């Protein structure tokens, strides 16, 4: 795991609440999406936010770079209150966001121009921009495609270009809202590998919103949301050992964890905190010896 030098918070929420309002003005129907979220994320962490559709995880993600503002409570990014309008630019510079559908976030007709888009808006000088775009494309492994048109790329490649566009802004934190949901297994692996490298080698804080448990297993910390609340916040080993609860809220557990769980039901007394293949292989080998 990446060493965290200063245990400084990059994200902090205090009693964050958010409602959507439907119905008429006289008779509003209030739909509570986030109910009292309190969480602290340290610089350099790799956190997965896991939850089923409608659990509130995307709404939560949108609070982390001020796309949505809390109905009550506070969200701080690098100690800046996201409700502070004057700081909006700084918040978005610090926390970049990648969305689910790669086709909805590409704006230019040439890969490197797409990556440069935000920098142009920020008024970064040409020399600096050139360097940042090249660095960003290299970091996601798309440098060789810099002169391609995005429509020639696969889903996974497009998603990596979208990530490059974010890291060119040099954010401290990237929030990815189900970045692999529309990709095939190959594309999923590419994106996961990219964000793991960004976390490990560049120290960028990653918040990965997902409903794929196999992606959550690769993170240092897993936050599980259900019905607008955080129900688990722990290491993947500790979270997935709660097999019945995780299932009940409609999420998957790794097959390895499930096997150990089923064997323990027969009274075999194995370590229930097994999630990786390696751990499972060792446990079964010991059992069958």
């Amino acid at each position: 795991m990446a060493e965290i030098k200063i245990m400084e918070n990059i994200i902090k929420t205090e009693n964050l609440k958010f409602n959507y309002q439907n119905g008429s003005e006289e008779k509003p129907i209030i739909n509570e999406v986030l109910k009292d979220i309190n969480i602290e994320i340290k610089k350099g962490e790799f956190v997965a936010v896991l939850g089923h559709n409608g659990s509130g995880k995307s709404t939560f993600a949108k609070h982390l770079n001020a796309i949505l503002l809390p109905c009550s409570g506070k969200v701080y990014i690098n100690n800046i209150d996201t409700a502070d309008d004057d700081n909006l630019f700084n918040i978005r510079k610090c926390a970049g966001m990648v969305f689910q559908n790669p086709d909805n976030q590409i704006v230019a007709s040439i890969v490197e121009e797409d990556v440069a888009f935000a920098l142009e808006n920020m008024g970064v000088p040409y020399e600096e921009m050139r360097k940042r775009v090249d660095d960003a494309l290299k970091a996601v492994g798309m440098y060789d495609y810099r002169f391609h048109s995005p429509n020639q790329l696969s889903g996974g490649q497009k998603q990596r270009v979208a990530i490059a566009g974010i890291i060119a802004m040099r954010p401290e934190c990237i929030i990815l809202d189900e970045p692999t949901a529309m990709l095939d297994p190959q594309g999923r692996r590419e994106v996961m590998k990219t964000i793991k490298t960004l976390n490990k080698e560049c120290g960028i804080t990653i918040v990965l919103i997902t409903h794929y448990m196999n992606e959550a297993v690769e993170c240092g910390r897993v936050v599980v949301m259900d019905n607008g609340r955080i129900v688990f916040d722990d290491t993947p080993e500790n979270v997935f050992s709660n097999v019945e609860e995780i299932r009940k809220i409609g999420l998957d557990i790794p097959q390895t964890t499930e096997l150990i769980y089923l064997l323990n039901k027969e009274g075999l007394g194995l370590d229930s905190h097994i999630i990786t293949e390696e751990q499972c292989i060792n446990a079964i080998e010991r059992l069958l010896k």
Partner: protein
Amino acid sequence: MSILKTENLTYVYSQGTPFEKIAVNKINIEIEKGEFVGIIGHTGSGKSTLIQHFNGLLQPTSGKIFIDGNDIWSNKENIRQVRFKVGLVFQYPEYQLFEENVFKDIAFGPKNMGLSEKEIKERVYDTAKLLEIPENFMKRSPFELSGGQKRRVAIAGVMAMNPEILILDEPSAGLDPHGRDIILDIIKNYHKKTGSTVMIVSHSMEDTAKYAEKILVMNKSELFCYDTVENVFRRSEEIEKIGLDVPQITRVFNKLRSHGISFGKEIYTVERAREVILDMLKKEGRI
């Protein structure tokens, strides 16, 4: 007799242009009536092109397809009948909803088949029940429903035609685990109840191993294999070599094998893994 058979089925995109590409190459396959088939392969391996031939959406560049023993392209006028026999549900089918209410949307296919009003109504309600679409949804606009509900309505529209073969292209794409389980259980239930042939294209090896009886693997425009789940996963090393996944549990047991522990059968579901281990412990008198 097989319900679906192909002979040297080949399809070439953009033939005669610089973009010419062989999408499926000399496919020979026979699928028996009533089978539940999982279709897997990389993006670009030719699986979508292949299934579009099964209901006559694409006409082979060369080779033949037989449904119920009849060459479907021997008489072009019959192709409409083929489309009623073989129902194809595309990826993200909810984007194809168009009617003003759920009933009309599901009824669209049966209506085109020229069925009577009474029969249409029966089919719509029967299918809706199977797909757990509540009766009070019938008058609602399909566009007001949630994503998972919309998808079920879209699938119902194809199922209501009672096709002999039902093909679904990634029916669980984009759904969360709970939504995925609901859809796949419904399809399994449909298969059991109607005895019709069902084919599912999937990227998930875990799901395919759990639901299918046979697996068709496409690789680089060619048929890699078509066999029982057990036999396909017996070749899991080759499958990984062509860049496809095998279920996590299969990987674990293959490793254990390479460490010198032998298991009688192939392990591709957690349930099987559990049984095998418990059997071994029982034999040794340890439980």
